[in-house]
């Protein structure tokens, strides 16, 4: 839709220049030729991404789809409910079966927020007719993107995912409550971030379908890929996290790095289905 508007706008502009009566405006015609050239070049580039792939993040606890403010039990028998759950996924792209095939990986980030279902689904521009077998993305904001000053969109600090006194984005924010938490009002809060030195919480993730399926996207036949997350592994990961012992993590450091390692273990694989 936007593209159509743009095309119309350029056509309109060219039309105006064409109809300009004064011979003095000959030079502008040269300018408009270059505009046409740019537009043609632009449309060639566009051709590369001629279809879309739908990606849906879906979180489960103990095999049950996650709902906020609902009681669950973690693998250590601790009951808990999650009130807020967000994380950054960026540079999302499909993985090609042919390793030699290279394409530009988008540089932007998505804030996946489970209180807003629209944000858990991403429409990714892709090239039709190529065989893919997985999805790759970056969990968290890398150091280059942490140092760009005031940003917008998913990285707008008004999203509440930015530490002000120790500049940096919170890559994962999980908040909730549990009778096992020793904190006031039994809350637990994991604000996981950090990109400096040994406390990097940013991970590159490649996921393949659970049964090694590969897939091709055509212009007509669209595909939906579900990225499953099993939140049990957030607690029962390489570093066991008992809410009773670790009810909070609020700053970059060794603990944040360990929790981020648990977190990437929650991505269990892809489920591929035709997208109606």
């Amino acid at each position, binding site marked *: 839709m936007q593209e159509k508007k743009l095309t119309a*706008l350029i056509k309109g502009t060219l039309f*105006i220049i064409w109809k300009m009566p004064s011979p003095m405006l000959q030079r502008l015609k040269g300018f408009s030729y270059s505009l046409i050239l740019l537009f043609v070049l632009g449309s060639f580039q566009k051709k590369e991404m001629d279809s879309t792939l739908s990606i849906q993040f879906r979180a489960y606890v103990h095999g049950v789809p996650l709902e906020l403010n609902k009681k669950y039990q973690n693998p250590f028998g601790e009951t808990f409910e999650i009130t807020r759950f967000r994380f950054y996924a960026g540079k999302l792209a499909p993985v090609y079966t042919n390793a030699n095939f290279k394409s530009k990986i988008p540089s932007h980030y998505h804030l996946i927020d489970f209180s807003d279902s629209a944000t858990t689904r991403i429409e990714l521009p892709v090239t039709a007719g190529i065989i893919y077998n997985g999805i790759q993305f970056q969990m968290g904001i890398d150091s280059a993107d942490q140092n760009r*000053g*005031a940003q917008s969109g998913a990285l*707008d*600090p*008004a999203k509440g995912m930015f530490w002000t006194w120790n500049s940096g984005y919170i890559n994962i924010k999980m908040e909730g409550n549990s009778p096992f938490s020793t904190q006031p009002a039994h809350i637990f809060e994991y604000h996981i971030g950090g990109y400096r*030195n040994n406390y990097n919480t940013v991970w590159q993730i490649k996921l393949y379908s659970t049964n090694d399926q590969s897939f091709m996207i055509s212009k007509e036949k669209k595909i939906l890929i579900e990225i499953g997350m099993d939140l049990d592994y957030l607690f029962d990961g390489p570093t066991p996290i008992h809410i009773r012992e670790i009810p909070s993590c609020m700053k*970059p450091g060794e603990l944040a790095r360990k929790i981020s390692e648990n977190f990437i273990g929650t991505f269990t694989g892809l489920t591929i289905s035709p997208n109606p």
Partner: protein
Amino acid sequence: MKSLAAITFIGFFCVIWTNIPFPFPVPEGFPSPIYKFQNNPRTREGFELGRKLFYDGLLSKDGNFPCSSCHQQFAAFATYEHRLSHGFNDQFSFRNAPGLFNLAWKKELDWDGGINHIEVQPLAPLLDPHEMAEDLNHVISKMKKDKTYPVLFNRVFGSPGISSQRILKALAQFTASLVSADSRYDKMKRGEVHFNQYELKGYEIFQQKCSRCHQEPLFTDFSYRNTGLEVDSTLKDFGRMRITGRKEDSIKFQVPSLRNVFLTYPYAHDGRFVTISEVLEHYNSGVVQGPTLDSGLRKGISISSDDRFYLIYFLETLTDSSFIKNPLYADPAMGVRNEAPAHLH
């Protein structure tokens, strides 16, 4: 469609015409700045919007704490005569407010260097419940209801809309423009004035005893150092360690610039020293030993009372009176103040 295109063209030229480029002058002898207004081209309108924001209480929860409440021009944008600054609901800030000048040369900001970019710096005081105690979305909604802000943002950024990014970029246009390079010292360097014999002697002593960390021309090397200050038991401030989490960084703070040092008292990260003499005496006799103490301070710095006499003469030459009286940096609604106003809290 024709008219839409025409409007686009006219709009495009209007942006070019109204936003006058505003070149950033790098003072003679200064290194190239870190912040070069990349992705935030400096314009007179952008600078003026940033200046208005800096002086506007609307950015604080109760309206009483604009940036300028703790960063006062007559004190080289530090808080005049306050160990710690005052914020929302009669609370104190965590640290002494530093003077704001030559910020475009800083890679990392704040006493512990925790802030990685000048554009995101204002977020710290803005959202701190002890300082301005605000919320970004609330500030934006207040500005949208204001009569002038929507017009000003539209003019500066070429399209309507107020966002945190635009607020921060406009503020950076102002704060990064605060350049102090016209002190008596600078005039001496440029050959416009000559130091008297006291100042000369003080300069000599300074170069021998102080300039290892307070390097010219910015009078800091921007490093983090433990200068042998005892940790205050109520503040429990371990400086740089809070940022890096490394034991080696315990009680280290960024070396502050000595420019305008006569105006920015009290001194040190918690404002524990009221006078320059006290600071000099600390180096002479008060350095507390510790594992992270700066290697050059193991034996302190011997500063005799004669040295102190001359050093103070020299340090006074670092006061930039044209900076603190520059109407360009003053409150657009009030003009330049020459001294602390009577109602100052």
